[in-house]
């Protein structure tokens, strides 16, 4: 019995642990927190959903994306458009082209349907953008995903007939609650773990570790990446829809771009990098850590304790936190590992810098790496 139970329990342990942490957070904030704490918690859960989506793609594939916030924008706009009451839409979207009008205007979805529809459109965009993106890695992928972000932002900004441009939306039902964001977060923690352990996730992680080796054993890297990219588009789309319904529609194109004050692009990437990109635990830990530090400084800015730091300090701290993590722990706080089994807790080792010399001179890799090892003394 034990033979079958333990491996299963080991698999379920990390998502269970993280879920319990989330539920405890929710219970504490729900029973003791005031408005400010509830607001922080809701925002944290929404960003957690986005970070989880980012982790599904970037964490498993090793390809960093700056463009996932674009899916957030699509989710928010699509969900808002489909849930605003018809009477209001008739007055606020006067210039909407007819081919959209005839199905968007009558649509009056409820919160869940709207969220799913918004995420569906995000998934659609992800599926369309997948073919070029999955062929790239490294800086090229960074540039291309950034281009997607700019394109979507520019579209939101300029197409005022559909997005109302820089004006805010009117009549978006405020349906996002602490509980709904918690439930979606729990779902996506499970989804992220299932994906990571599934054959798709395993193949993708193999390609992250060594693309050539993975290809040589038959992993079709672009297809595996496309699956993760599309799935993460859906997850982030849900995050965007929840975001859109939280502020009662007071969102604009700049909410999903490099915006001073609340730079969601840098914030989510910082959370993932600080926590540790390659594990779901890293996404959650990074989200909690960054939120706590960021909010600490923001409260300090607002309330002041004798000495009041100038407004904007929290944002500076965010940037420094990201840079310091890249210096000191490039693999993040968790070192890219999941929550260990209860009996195996120990301090995470410092990630070793590069393979050891002995490993380099064995097998076929030796010739490859020998040249690299010779250069090391010349670096300094």
């Amino acid at each position, binding site marked *: 019995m034990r033979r079958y139970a333990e491996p299963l329990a080991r698999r379920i342990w990390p998502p269970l642990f993280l879920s319990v942490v989330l539920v405890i957070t929710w219970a504490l904030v729900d029973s003791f927190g005031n408005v400010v704490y509830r607001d922080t918690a809701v925002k944290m859960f929404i960003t957690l959903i986005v970070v989880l989506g980012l982790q599904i793609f970037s964490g498993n594939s090793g390809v960093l994306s700056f463009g996932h916030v674009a899916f957030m924008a699509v989710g928010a706009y699509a969900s808002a458009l489909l849930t605003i009451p018809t009477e209001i839409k008739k007055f606020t979207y006067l210039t909407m082209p007819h081919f959209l009008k005839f199905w968007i205007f009558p649509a009056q979805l409820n919160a869940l349907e709207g969220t799913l529809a918004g995420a569906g459109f995000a998934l659609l965009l992800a599926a369309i953008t997948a073919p*070029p993106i999955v062929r790239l890695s490294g800086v*090229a992928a960074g540039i291309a995903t950034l281009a997607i972000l700019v394109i979507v932002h520019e579209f939101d900004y300029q197409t005022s007939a559909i997005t109302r441009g820089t004006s805010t939306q009117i009549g978006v039902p405020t349906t996002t609650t602490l509980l709904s964001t918690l439930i979606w977060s729990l779902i996506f923690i499970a989804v992220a773990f299932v994906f990571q352990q599934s054959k798709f996730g395993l193949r993708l992680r193999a390609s992250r570790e060594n693309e050539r080796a993975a290809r040589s054993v038959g992993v079709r890297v672009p297809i595996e990446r496309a699956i993760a990219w599309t799935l993460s588009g859906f997850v982030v789309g849900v995050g965007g829809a929840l975001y859109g319904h939280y502020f009662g529609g007071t969102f604009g194109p700049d909410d999903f771009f490099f915006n001073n004050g609340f730079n969601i692009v840098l914030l989510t990437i910082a959370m993932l990098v600080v926590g540790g990109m390659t594990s779901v635990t890293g996404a959650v830990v990074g989200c909690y850590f960054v939120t706590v530090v960021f909010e600490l400084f923001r409260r300090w800015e607002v309330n002041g304790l004798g000495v009041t730091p100038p*407004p904007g300090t929290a944002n500076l701290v965010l940037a420094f936190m990201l840079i310091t993590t890249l210096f000191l722990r490039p693999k993040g706080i968790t070192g890219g590992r999941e929550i260990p089994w209860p009996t195996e807790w120990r301090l995470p080792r410092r990630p070793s810098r590069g393979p050891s010399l002995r490993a380099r001179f064995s097998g076929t890799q030796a010739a490859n790496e020998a040249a690299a090892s010779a250069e090391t003394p010349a*670096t300094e």
Partner: protein
Amino acid sequence: MATAIQYILDSIAYGSLFALMAMGLALLFGVMGLMNFAYGELIMAGAYTMFFTRSWGWLGMIVTTLIVVTVLSLVMELVAFRPLRGASPVTLLITSFAVSYALQEFAWTDVLGLSHRFNGATIGTGPQKGVQPYPWLTQQYQVKGVLVSKLEIITVIVTIALLVGMTLLLKRTMLGIQLRASTQDFRMAQLVGVKANWVISSAFAITGVLAGAVALLYVFRTGLVAPDMGQGPLLVAFVGGVIGGLGSLSGAALGGFVLGVIINILNASLPVKLHSYSLLFAFMAVIAIVVLQPEGLIAFRRGGDWLERLWQRIRKPATEGAGA
């Protein structure tokens, strides 16, 4: 006809700015694989320096701006990028985003109490009144119905001077040879004795000077000073650089120049409704190029740089090999 020529002249001046910017981006990209998004903030810093030194006279202003931007560029390298030497280009990319964000946020805040020190000008409250260009700069000449301002002429002259200067620096000096060697193969260059810190610091200093020049010309042109003013020009220069090919300096410069010219002509000639999407199409082109032709459209690495070939043709093939 006269208006057409005027458009073209104006576009050339506008494109020159982006040629300089794209070249700065390409230099760092070539030497250390860094796509420096904090480059726009160097221009922002230059603009603020101009704003604070606007009463110092033009020479003082220009010299101070160049020095401040170059020093900032060097400090940026020392603080943010040197500890990450050898890190993956993606890590450097994230870092440059963080640096860009930090500098922008710093400009929005009021950290140094600059509001009290400089004639009551607050650094933290968004767009400023800006820098008034000197009257002698905006002075316009009329040549056969074509209006040309002194600033446009100066912009083109400065750009040409900097391009020639860069070419001479890269082809004729020891530093230039080391830089070009590092661009081709950084590890190999180190193996034959090129000092990494020296080359990278020099590259940052050169981009700093370029950014300072761009800041001066750009702010004299628009008069705008704002914390996020670097973002727009950076995106255009970045797209131009990718289109031209960030792997080569001349390719990137030409790409930036052509894109600047195209954007300026489109802005002037197309109805507002159409050219508002120009950035959208530019970035679609970026995706296409990154996927299909990552070397860029203009830079053909295998055939060598067109500037290099031009240079060799001028110098006669007999003396080639100074840098190779």
